[in-house]
Structures are given as C-alpha cells and as structure tokens.
C-alpha cells in the first residue's frame, strides 16, 4: 500500500522551516498589535490621553504592521522556493526510477497516467507544500502561543480557550475522519462530471453516426442535475464541519466578551486587558480556520503523493534496465565491444512483471525458448501475435529479464555485461518509434549525437528517408511536433531506420511495424529491411547480426534463418526454403497468410463483372 510520505531534505527543509517561522512571526506580531491597540484605546478612553501622547504607541503599531507585512511576504517566497526544490528533486527521482524500470513497466501503464503523475501530480504538491504544510504547522503552533499570551493576561479566559479549542479539535477529528473520505469523494465527483462531458464530446461523431446525438442533451441535463444534487449532498456534510468551526469560534468570542465584561464591571479586570482578550480570541482560532480552508489542498497533494510513491515503490528488475546499473561490479567485466555477436537463448523463460495496478500474474511470454543467432547471421522470428517475438527483442535490449535460462552473447551471459556498454552495441527499430520534440536532424542524431551532417544524410539515404525529408518545409531542420505529428507512419518508420543506419552497430534489433503503412512507404521500408537482413559488416568491419521480429512473412524470407515461435517457444527453425518444403508450423502460417485456402472459399455464383465500376479519379 503506497503511503503519502515525502522526505524533504537539505535547503528545502530549511526554507520550509523559514516559511513556517515567518508565518509564526506574522501571527505573533498580529497578537502584539492587538495588545498595543487595546492599550491605546484604554489610554484615550479611560485616562483621556491626547493624540500627542499616544503618537509613540501608534508608531509602535505601525512598526509591527510593517514587520508583519515582511513576514507574510517572506513566508510565500520561502515556501515557494522550498516547493520548487522538492518538486525538482522528485521529478528527477521519478524519471530515474522510470528509466530503471524500463519500457516493460511504462508499457503496462498508460503513459498519460505517468506523465500525469510526473507533471500534474508533482505540481499538485505545490499547494501541498506552499499552503497545506505551513498551515498545518501553524495550526499546531500559533494557538498555543496565543493561549500562553491569554494565560499571562488573564488565566480565567485562557480556560475558555482551553475548553473550546480542544473541543473544536475533537469535534473536527470526529467529523474529520469522515470529512477526509468526503473530500476525496467530492473530488472524485467533481472530475467525474467533467470526464462524462468530455466522453460525450469526443464521441459526438459516433453518436451522430447512429443518430443518437440530439437526445444526449437531455441526458446531460438529467445527469448534470443528479450530479449537482449528489455533489451538494456531499458538500453539505463538508459545510457542516465548517459550521462547527464557525460556531466554536463565534461562541468563544461571545463567551469571552460576556465573561470579561461582567468581571470588568465588578472591577476585577482592567479594561485594556479585557479588550485585548476580545481581540486575541479570534486570533486563537484563525490558524485553525485557515488550516481547514487549506485542508483540501492537502488532500489533492496527498492523492498525488500516493500515486507518485506507487511508481517509486515499484521494484526495479534485479539488474536495472536503466542507465544506472546497481548490479555488483565484477572485477573483470567483459567489454561487449570485443565480443562476437553470437546470440544464444538457452531455455529462457520470461514473464512480464504485473502492472503497478497489482494486476494478476501474467502467463510467461517466453517458455523455455532456445535458439542461436550466429555472428553475422540474420534471423527472423515469425509467429502469431503474442508468440513472444517482441519479447525476444526486449530481452536482448535489456528491458526485461528472464526468470530462468541463459541469454548469452558470444558465450558471456548478458547479465554480466554492463548495460550501458552493451547497448552501445545495439541499433534498434521499435514497432512504434518515438519522435522527439526537435528537428528531424535531432531525431536521427539521437543514435549518434556527434554525427557529421554528411553521415546524417547518408544514413537517411540508406533508409529512404532523405527524399521526403528534403521535401519538408525546412528539410532536416523541420521541427516535429507532439509525437512527430505531421509525419505518416511510414515516414516515422523510415526515420527510425535512419537512426539504425547512423548507429552502425554490430547487433541490429528490428521490430517490424504492424500498423498500416501506405503502399509507397511499405515498399520502401520493406526494401530497407531486406537490405539490413543481408547482415553484412559494420563500418569498422565487424560482422553484423540482425534479429527481426517479423509480423509479415514476405520479409522473413530474406533472412538467413527463420525461427517459428508459438506461445513463447521456438517450434521450428531453418532457412525459408527448407521450412516451406516440409509440412509444419511455418507452412501453416504461410498458408493462412497468403490466403491460399481455396477449399474454404465458396464457389462463386456469377458475380457482376468488374466493368460495373465505371470510373475512378483520373
């Protein structure tokens, strides 16, 4: 169960302390100001001092006012600075951990959710840190100070506060437990209506398609009414707790006024004290009331903290997928660059970790998988979706760890290699390559930030990307928007291929795109992939090993060897010619794929001939 906890360290802690101290100072100065004002009024009212005699006292009041203003100003500034530092640290921690968890984790989460935790969630802490926390501390400290002051002025009156204060806190605690649940419910309800409305707007074309759009206006009215009613019921209970708060504060003020005036009348209490007590009583309750007002800010922050901690507490795989390897350092870590790229899976079983939502155990993605890709060989993995093709690629990239079996490179277990050095040997084209905010050139250069412009162009040419890039408004300097908007799927794929060429690594991992490309792109991408499958050598003469997760069979033919996978196992392997000639899983796939199933096709009745199509776009 993720907790709401937040460790605030270093300068942030000092700043937050300073902010609280400033807030306390402001409260204390207000109390001092009240005492001074009472004194002035007393001197004029009871002793008939003239304006000149009270001027110094008024000067003191103004001094306190100025100091108080300074305190209030500092409180905001320091609290905000503290919040900035905490948020920065938390974001770094969050992304660090997400890198450590690797894509195997991020894929199970909706990335929007994670971004939400990292941006909006961390931002939600802003109010938590700048408003809620100082208010909480002040609610604990200031009333005690005022109580002490009141006790010094008049012990009897402090008894009233001593009773009403804790009674109020008790009442609030009684309601509070429920109020917390209610606040949560209220927030859930508030966002629910918004989500409902958004759902309708997004689905408007679909509703129109089925002629159901106009009737939704009534649905909105109905639901909005019901929603308003239920939210108001929730709110009404929340209002009750503020009713208690108000009532206690006003009742205490009234009691103090009545009690002091009676004792004043009997001459046992001086006037200036009685007036000061009256002014101090609301100040006793003020921090508590402010805390109640800011309480919901804390609730939103707490919910966000829970989500953030949930992410942070997800254990990273034993050998992290990220940049910072926490595995014990072997004295003699093999240098991956010196290893021959002979990839070997021996009885590898791999199961993806369950999602952070604590979902049920998933079936293994790889079961006892064994196959070898010799150095310089190209191997295509084929099989139905879910057979484990992409998992093989992910395991080689170090994003997921096998639970058992051995995955080795040139005879060295992958687990012994330093991840960062190992990944330098890999070029990778994922199914959905991510295009980053930045120019086309930046996006290709991701593979090698120091690449010269000529190398960039040459890589783009090899990937058949150069043609369309030069047609973009600013060529290689064209900026790509969110998720590379403005490029078609095929063009994005070709940019990812350009990265592969630019990296020129001895191991190439290709995860063939499954979505539809237009015919032109598809032909170009296929051609490029076929070139890559002819393995060859890297620029510095090392043999290149290529692994392709193939979702279409045409491409697999070009590979030196095909491994047919079925539910996480390798069920058949060999070159295309060999596999196609025997009856087996590959033949079955091939048959389904080419639609070569004349036995299933019903014999045609005479269909209208094609000439009924009278035209097309010239």
């Amino acid at each position, binding site marked *: 169960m993720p907790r709401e906890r937040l460790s605030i360290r270093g300068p942030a802690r000092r700043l937050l302390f300073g902010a609280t101290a400033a807030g306390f100072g*402001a409260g204390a100065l207000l109390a001092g100001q009240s005492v001074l004002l009472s004194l002035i009024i007393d001197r*004029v009212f009871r002793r008939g001092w003239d304006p000149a005699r009270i001027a110094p006292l008024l000067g003191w009041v103004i001094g306190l006012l100025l100091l108080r203003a300074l305190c209030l100003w500092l409180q905001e500034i320091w609290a905000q600075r503290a919040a*900035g530092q905490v948020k920065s640290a938390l974001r770094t921690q969050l992304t660090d951990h997400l890198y450590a968890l690797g894509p195997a984790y991020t894929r199970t989460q909706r990335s929007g959710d994670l971004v939400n935790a990292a941006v909006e969630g961390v931002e939600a802490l802003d109010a938590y840190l700048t408003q809620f926390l100082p208010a909480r501390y002040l609610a604990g400290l200031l009333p005690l100070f005022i109580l002490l002051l009141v006790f010094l002025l008049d012990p009897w009156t402090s008894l009233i506060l001593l009773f009403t204060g804790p009674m109020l806190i008790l009442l609030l605690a009684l309601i509070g437990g429920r109020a917390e649940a209610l606040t949560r419910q209220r927030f859930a309800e508030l966002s629910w209506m918004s989500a409902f409305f958004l759902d309708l707007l997004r689905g408007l074309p*679909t509703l129109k398609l089925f002629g159901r759009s106009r009737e939704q206006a009534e649905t909105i009215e109905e639901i909005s009414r019901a929603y308003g009613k239920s939210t108001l019921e929730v709110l009404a209970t929340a209002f009750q707790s503020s009713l208690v708060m108000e009532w206690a504060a006003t009742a205490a*003020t009234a009691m103090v006024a009545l009690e002091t005036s009676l004792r004043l*009348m009997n001459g046992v209490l001086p006037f200036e004290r009685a007036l000061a007590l009256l002014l101090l009583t609301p100040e006793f309750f003020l921090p508590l009331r402010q805390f109640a007002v800011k309480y919901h800010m804390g609730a939103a922050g707490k919910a966000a903290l829970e989500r953030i901690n949930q992410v942070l507490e997800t254990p990273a795989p034993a050998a992290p997928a990220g940049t910072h390897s926490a595995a014990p350092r072997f004295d003699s870590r093999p240098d991956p660059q010196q290893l021959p790229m002979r990839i070997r899976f021996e009885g590898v079983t791999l199961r993806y970790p369950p999602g952070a939502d604590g979902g049920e155990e998933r079936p293994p993605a790889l079961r006892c998988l064994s196959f070898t890709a010799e150095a310089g060989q190209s191997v295509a993995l084929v099989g139905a979706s879910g057979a484990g093709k992409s998992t093989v690629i992910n395991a080689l990239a170090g994003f997921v760890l096998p639970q058992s079996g051995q995955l080795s490179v040139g005879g060295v277990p992958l687990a012994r290699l330093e991840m960062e050095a190992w990944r330098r040997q890999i070029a990778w084209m994922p199914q959905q390559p991510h295009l980053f905010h930045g120019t086309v050139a930046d996006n290709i250069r991701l593979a090698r930030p120091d690449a010269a412009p000529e190398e960039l162009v040459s890589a783009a040419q090899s990937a058949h990307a150069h043609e369309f890039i030069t047609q973009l408004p600013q060529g290689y300097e064209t900026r790509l928007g969110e998720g590379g908007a403005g490029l078609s799927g095929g063009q994005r794929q070709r940019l990812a291929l350009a990265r592969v060429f630019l990296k020129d690594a001895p191991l190439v991992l290709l995860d063939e795109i499954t979505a539809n490309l237009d015919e032109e792109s598809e032909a170009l991408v296929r051609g490029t992939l076929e070139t890559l499958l002819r393995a060859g050598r890297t620029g510095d003469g090392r043999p290149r090993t290529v692994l392709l997760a193939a979702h279409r069979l045409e491409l697999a033919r070009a590979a030196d060897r095909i491994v047919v996978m079925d539910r996480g196992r390798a069920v058949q392997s060999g070159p295309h010619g060999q596999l196609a000639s025997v009856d087996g899983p590959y033949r079955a796939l091939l048959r389904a794929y080419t639609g070569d199933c004349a036995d299933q096709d019903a014999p045609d009745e005479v269909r209208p001939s094609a000439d*009924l*199509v009278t035209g097309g776009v010239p």
Partner: protein
Amino acid sequence: MRRLLALTLWPGRKSGAPGYVGWLLLGILLSAATSLTNVGLLAVSAYLISKAALVRESSDLSLLITGVRFFALARAGLRYAERYVTHLATFRILTRLRVWFYRALEPLAPARLQGYRSGDLLTRIAADMETLENFYLRVVIPPLAAALVILAASLFLGFFDRRLAWALLLFALITGVLLPWVNLRLSRGPAAETIRLRAALNAALVDELEGGADLLIFGQAGRYQARTGALSARLHAAQAQLAGVRGLSNALSALLAGLAGVTLLLLAVPLVTGGDLNGVYLAMLPLTAMTALEAVQPMNQAAQMLASSRAAAGRLFELADAPPPVTDPPAPAVAPAAQGGLALDVDHLRFRYSPDAPLVLDGLTFHVPAGGRVALLGPNGSGKSSLINVLLRFWAYEGGVITLGGADLRTLTQDDARRLVGVAPQQVYLFNGSLRENLYLADPDASEEALIDACRLAQLHDWIGSLPQGYDTLVGENGLLLSGGQRQRLAIARAVLKDAPILILDEPAAHLDPLTEQALWQALDSFMAERTTIIISHKPLEAARVDGVVRVG
C-alpha cells in the same frame, strides 16, 4: 462576460427557462449578512466591554449581551445557508450551461472541431466549463457581497463621523480594487510564462516517458533528463516570481487592514479628546473597519479568476458561434426505401476540408449498383476516408453529385442520410461504459440475440464470452482496455447492428491476424450480399472479395 451572465441568469422569455438571478441575489445577500454578523459580533462585543467599564449594573448591559449572543449564533447558521444556496445556484446554472453548449456544439461536430489539434480542444472545453464553475462562486458573488458589507459598515461609521466612513471607503477601494489590479498586472507576465513552461515540461516528460526505450538504447537518457531538469528549474523560477507577487499582495493587504485601524484611531482620538465623541465608542470603531475589510480580501482571487473566466467564456462562445458545416434543406426529400441495398452514385465529386485547403477529392466518379461490393484503394491521405465524411454529411462537398438509390444526398436531411449509411470507421470511438452499452448505441431497440449475432459476425463473440464479465465488461476511457483489433471488430459489430442499406468498412482487417481476417470475410459475406458495400483499403484486396476496384489518388 455579459453574454455569459445573460445566458444563465436571464435566459429570456423565448426559451421559457427560469432565470437564476433570484438565487444568485439570495446568495449575495446571505454572503454579505454572514460577513456583517462577524462585524457586528466584534463591534458589539467591544462596545459591551467599553460600556462595562463604566456601569455597575448588569441590567444596563442586557441588550448588548443579547446582541452578542445573537450575532454569535447567527453567523454559523448564515454561513451554512450561504454556502448551500450559492453552490445550489452554481450547479443549476452549470447544468443549463452544459446543455446549452452541447446543443450549440452538436451540429458542429466533427467538422468545426477538427481544425484544432485532436484531443486538445475537447479537453480544453471540459476544463473551461470547470473554470466557469468557479465564476459565480468566486467572481460574481464576492465583490457584490463585499460592496454591501463596506456600504453598511460605512453608513454605520458615518453615523459617528463622516470622515470615518470616507476612510473606510478609501481603504476598501485600495484593498479591493487597486491592489488586485496591480497584482493582476504584475503577475500577468510570470503567469503566462508558468503556463508556457508547464506545457513545455509536459511535452518534455512525454518525450522522456514515451521515448524512454529509444533513449536508453541510444544512450541519451542522461542528456534528456538534464534537459527536463533545466525546464523544471525554469518553471520553478517563474513560480517563485509569482509567489513573490502573491506574497507582496498578501503582505500589503494585511498592512492596509492594520493601517485602516490606525487611521480610524487617529481620526477618532481627537474627537474623543475634543469631546465630540463619547470614549465608550472608541474601541468599536477601528474594529468595525478592520473586520469589514476582511470581506474585501477575496477580491484578489476574484480578479485572477475573472481573467481566466473571461478567457474560458470567450473560447466557448467563439466555438459555439461557428456556422454549422451542413444545414438541412428547407424542404427535404423523402428518403429512399432500402431493400437489398441502395445504388450509390458518385459523380465528379469535389471536396476540400476548408476553402483555403487543397482539394482532397477532385472529380471522383464511381457507381456501385444495389447490392454491389467495391474496394476503394489508394495510399494514405488520398481522400478515401474523406468520402465517408462526405457521405455522412459531416462536411459539405463543393462540387459534383452524390445519389443514394436515386435520391440526391443534398436533398435529404442529415439524419436520413446517416440512417442510410452504416460505417465501421478505422478510428472507432468507444464510450466509457460496458461493451453492451457501446454496442446498443448502434440500435437501442436491438434484441440480445441480434447483439450476439452481430458480434459473432464480427468475430468478437468468442472473445467476449471468454471475459469474466462478458458483455458487461467495461471498456475504459475511450476503450483503452481493448486492443486495436478488438476495437475495430467492435466497430464492425456496431455497423452490422445498425443494419443500414449501405455498408462502409474502413480498413477492416488492419489489425487482424491472417486467420481472423479469413474468418471475418467469410462471416461477412452473406451480410454484405444484401447490402451495398464499400471496402476502404490502402492495399489491394483479394480480387475474389469484391466486384470491382476504385482507385483514389
């Protein structure tokens, strides 16, 4: 802003809807009364204490004691009533606003909503509606209530001396008008910067999270993290600047309240020493001014929210005022009866998404006889899917003629046109509900058997049957819990349920494995036989599946 108020408060005689101005006025009065009881409580208490210093008999104080009790009890109750009434009014007003806005938007979708970046606009609309939720509670009510409180307190002070009233008015104006105005001006720059940097940080983090695998493989994670870190630091710097302004305005507003007290004392003390004012009132006067000024404190927030509400309302009205892309003919023709499909004729169709955009379809011509089956082929972006938008009357076409069963599409009402065409779109939208609800959308009167038959046809039934909740399985927000293939088959099942004479399948096999694709075609064969079918595809289909091919682009 005026229009927003008019829409919800005085909807006019025509609409016949009740206005909510009464509710709002009640809220304002209650809000002012709540503040005034607080002023009253402290003022009467101070007077009571002062008086007690002079008298010897408690009977002389009984009226004042009653006053203190009254104010103490009334405040809590009034506060509760105020909150209840203002929230009630807000919720009612919002209901009206939502319905009005939906009605305004309905004819515009999707054409007028498409020009903006996909989800962005709709998310903003929902957020804008939420912003307006605060408009009444925090923008409309507080200033009016504060004005009433200040007015009442000034009248009270003016009863003693006119200058006291003027002093309070002056401080109220400075705290409630000048200070928020300065605050708004000073924070405008950093506030805009904060919004901008927050969006940039958001984008950078999306990059990092969605492209995490790419960054790890290419060893760039550290560099991107540093970039995000720098953005985060800049955001926090802008926020600190805002906090500086906020802190300054808090400090000044507290200072002004204190100075108001001091000023009133300075004005009242000579009156007392000069004998023009009984000293017993001296404590009450500055207290009255200081507590009355508390009602002005929310003005800062109101000013900030007025700015954001104005922007939100402006965006909503701009959108609602857009002309609809297609209007129904004044005298619509009768929709053709459909049995065994309708012939579809497209003759020299010319279409573009907006007047300054290039032509998407330029002279598209083809004919499909009733019950015919045609493949529409062409590369991405060639306008295949645009044809669907035109046939569904989501967009108007600028040239050419389309006839359905001999009837000109333009002479039909939009509803009739849509009734004749069943579409399984490529980008299917699923509502956050159960599978059943999403299917019944296509035909609310369908029987359970019809539902299951449609899913059998679409190769969905076995999968749905294997789910623990079956047809009651929730699909999540926009069906995110379903895979691409499942969504697409759900779209096909919907189109089957709709049972329209013309069937359009947009890339029906895009996400399907070869075996499922085979089964789907086979199952659809008899269904398509009785309908006119158009299959949109980016790659050639097997010739046996269609009667003919239209190439687009």
